[in-house]
């Protein structure tokens, strides 16, 4: 009888463990599995220092791509990320937003610093030569297409997802464009714990 009870309890425990959600599954963002190291990033930061992901080990990195002349997607994304950091309070110190330009011809370090600073002065931009930016975009599967306007100016359509990189440098999740700040706060709290 005792053996039977142990077997039943063991079965229940095994089921409970199997049914327990993995931490990543409760994220609002899309979860990558298995977790792999985020691709390398070798650019120049808008703060003038070399920009690599290793530099932010111990922090959760929110990585996105855009450009300072963007009139639609980028301002919304950056305002959302700035709002999420404000809502996080003290925990925001462990979150680093990195925004890499897809327009290296117009965005240098000073331009990105000025642009990002209007949203949150802690945001760091990524700049570099066209070749360096192309390598970064390819590594993260970022597409961008230049659209020339009638007056000769141009705009750029680009991938707008936000990559979430954990404290150890693992690419954990991807938040598609359009999620509110509260969804980022929800996921960041989980990523900061794990």
């Amino acid at each position: 009888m005792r053996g039977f009870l142990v077997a039943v309890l063991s079965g229940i425990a095994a089921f409970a463990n199997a049914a327990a959600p993995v931490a990543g599954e409760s994220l609002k963002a899309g979860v990558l599995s298995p977790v792999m190291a985020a691709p390398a990033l070798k650019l120049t930061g808008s703060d003038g220092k070399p920009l690599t992901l290793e530099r932010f080990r111990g922090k959760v990195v929110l990585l996105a791509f855009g450009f300072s002349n963007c009139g639609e997607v980028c301002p919304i994304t950056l305002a959302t990320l700035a709002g999420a950091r404000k809502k996080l309070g003290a925990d925001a110190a462990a979150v680093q937003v990195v925004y890499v330009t897809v327009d290296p011809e117009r965005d240098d370090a000073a331009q990105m610093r000025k642009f990002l600073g209007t949203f949150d002065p802690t945001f760091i931009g990524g700049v570099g030569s066209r070749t360096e930016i192309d390598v970064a975009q390819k590594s993260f599967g970022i597409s961008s297409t230049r659209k020339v306007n009638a007056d000769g100016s141009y705009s750029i359509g680009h991938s707008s997802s936000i990559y979430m990189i954990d404290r150890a440098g693992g690419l954990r999740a991807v938040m598609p464009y359009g999620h509110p700040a509260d969804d980022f706060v929800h996921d960041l709290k989980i990523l900061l714990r794990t």
Partner: protein
Amino acid sequence: MRIAAVPLAAALAVLAWAGFAPVSVPSRDELFEIPKGTYARRMAGDKVEILPSRIRLTLGLNDTLLLRNLDDVPQVFGPTILMPGQSFRLPFEKAAEYQFACTAHASGQMTIEVEEEPAMPWSRIHWRVREWWENRTG
């Protein structure tokens, strides 16, 4: 008269079941896989179309997109890059139409339509009839 009433009653019973019985599906995950060799086939000139260019999900039922890359090379699949052997589980909480770039498609685009949960009798009947029709026609 009585003979005609029997099929009518049966039809009403079916209609009542279709409208009021809860709708369920085996899993909330809608799985799509890029088979091994997809990239090689495409490079060889084969216009292979593995995935539907339009995917429909229903909130509360199959509202999570599960993408799996079984190919030997990374694939930009929806909103992310997927390494070989990696999967991506993306839940949806809002009914809308989502456009994503996707190198797994010859067109380079993928649309995900997320519809509201069929909560009302008419919407449940509509959902069931549509599922039955699409399963029947493959």
